[in-house]
């Protein structure tokens, strides 16, 4: 009786064992295939996509009002097609004048020609000075607002459409980086549409208002072997008037000198960050129609069209102290000024100080508490946009 029972049990055991082995083999084969797929994914040369970006918002207390501002969201799309080819684009969603404003910060294609030369074409952030190219994201900028001369109401270029060659190379223990570009270039405001801004340069020049292309570039020199110091020279030249107008030969020269110095200070257990830039914009003098002259509608006026702007900033963060809370703090101070042509309808002579106490939650999330004071004269003022006066700014920014 016992033998009769043992036989089915043995048979059942072998059946289960065989099934289990088969199941294990299938599982092992599946895992092996998964590993092979992962290996395939990590091989160089395969297309890879990355979504990055940043967001910020804040509360601003000015002499006129107290308002929540910002609500800006900037996704950056990066697509690596191969080890040489990459596409990237940054969009900006922000509230402006009670409307949703969607902007294209840049969208370009980069191709690595050689180890030390890359070609980019499309809409690119211009390497003119250091602010726009390197410091404009809210989580990188150590202050709640931009320095004078940059962005809305500024005199400097941000992005443009064209083609650029850029790269970097070592010279012994020193390093240089270089960029040369051909772009649509700035467009002269000839006063027909916005008479109060006649003579100003606008950088949203697409399609181009003439057949001329602006040529520019930047050369950066890093003399120290630890790359802590960089001295940069930027320049751009191009005709800015409309091709078939009396302003066809009006040209602009733009230049900038920038210095960056970032150094660990062991005796203070801190990181020191100094950045400064001086830039000038010189446009050929031209006659503009004086729309304010109601007696003589044909009256013209002119002025010496020279502009300049400066910023200098310093930041110290005790990043090497043991106390986690203390090392998350950073103090920063910045001076900036803006000088636009006397005699124009947008003449201004402004200077600004901004001090900021920052708290870093992690390497890319920051709370900024800033105090800003701006003095000077603004000939043409769009009212609420006037930067003159004192303000407390509290901003939060995150990079992702």
């Amino acid at each position: 009786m016992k033998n009769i029972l043992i036989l089915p049990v043995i048979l059942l055991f072998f059946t289960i064992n065989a099934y289990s082995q088969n199941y294990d083999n299938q599982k092992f084969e599946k895992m092996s295939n998964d590993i092979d797929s992962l290996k395939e994914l990590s091989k160089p040369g395969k297309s890879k996509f990355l979504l990055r970006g940043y967001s910020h918002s804040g509360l601003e207390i000015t002499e006129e009002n107290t308002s929540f501002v910002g609500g800006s969201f900037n996704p950056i799309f990066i697509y690596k097609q191969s080890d040489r080819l990459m596409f990237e684009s940054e969009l900006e969603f922000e509230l402006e004048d009670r409307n949703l404003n969607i902007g294209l910060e840049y969208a370009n294609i980069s191709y690595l020609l050689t180890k030390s030369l890359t070609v980019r074409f499309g809409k690119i952030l211009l390497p003119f000075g250091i602010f726009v190219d390197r410091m404009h994201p809210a989580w990188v900028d150590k202050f709640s607002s931009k320095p004078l001369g940059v962005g809305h109401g500024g005199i400097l270029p941000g992005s443009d459409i064209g083609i650029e060659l850029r790269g970097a190379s070592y010279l012994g223990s020193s390093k240089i980086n270089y960029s040369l570009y051909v772009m649509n270039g700035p467009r002269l405001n000839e006063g027909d549409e916005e008479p109060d801004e006649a003579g100003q340069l606008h950088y949203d020049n697409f399609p181009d208002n003439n057949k001329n292309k602006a040529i520019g570039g930047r050369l950066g020199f890093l003399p120290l072997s630890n790359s802590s110091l960089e001295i940069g020279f930027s320049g751009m030249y191009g005709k800015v008037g409309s091709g078939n107008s009396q302003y066809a030969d009006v040209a602009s020269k733009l230049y900038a000198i920038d210095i960056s110095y970032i150094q660990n200070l062991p005796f203070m257990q801190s990181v020191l960050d100094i950045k400064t830039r001086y830039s000038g914009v010189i446009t050929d003098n031209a006659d503009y129609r004086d729309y304010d002259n109601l007696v003589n509608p044909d009256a013209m006026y002119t002025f010496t069209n020279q502009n300049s702007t400066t910023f200098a900033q310093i930041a110290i963060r005790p990043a090497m102290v043991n106390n986690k809370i203390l090392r998350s703090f950073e103090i920063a101070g910045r001076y900036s000024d803006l000088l636009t042509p006397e005699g124009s309808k947008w003449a201004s002579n402004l200077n600004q100080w901004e001090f900021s106490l920052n708290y870093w939650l992690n390497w890319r999330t920051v709370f900024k508490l800033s105090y800003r004071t701006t003095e000077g004269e603004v000939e043409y003022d769009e009212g609420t946009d006037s930067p003159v006066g004192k303000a407390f700014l509290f901003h939060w920014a995150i990079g992702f």
Partner: protein
Amino acid sequence: MKNKRKSLIYSGLGTLILFALIFLLSNCNVSNEIKAKSGAQLWGENCLRCHNNPSPETFSDVEWDVAVMHMRIRANLTDEEAKKIAKFLKTAN
């Protein structure tokens, strides 16, 4: 017409000079001090020039490949620097 020809000549000359400069630079000797730098050291020196040093845990290996290529172009890193930094970030994450 004359101005157009002048501009073309200047642009051509400028491009030639740039390529000659880049050819010369790419053949320049790199000092042993620079060659000996580790990926961690280059990560510490270069990222901090614009922003805080990113934590290696932020991205996966595959994502670091894309992020480093993006920064190589944006921050003008050399080929060698980008490779060493990517290797360090992938090892440390």
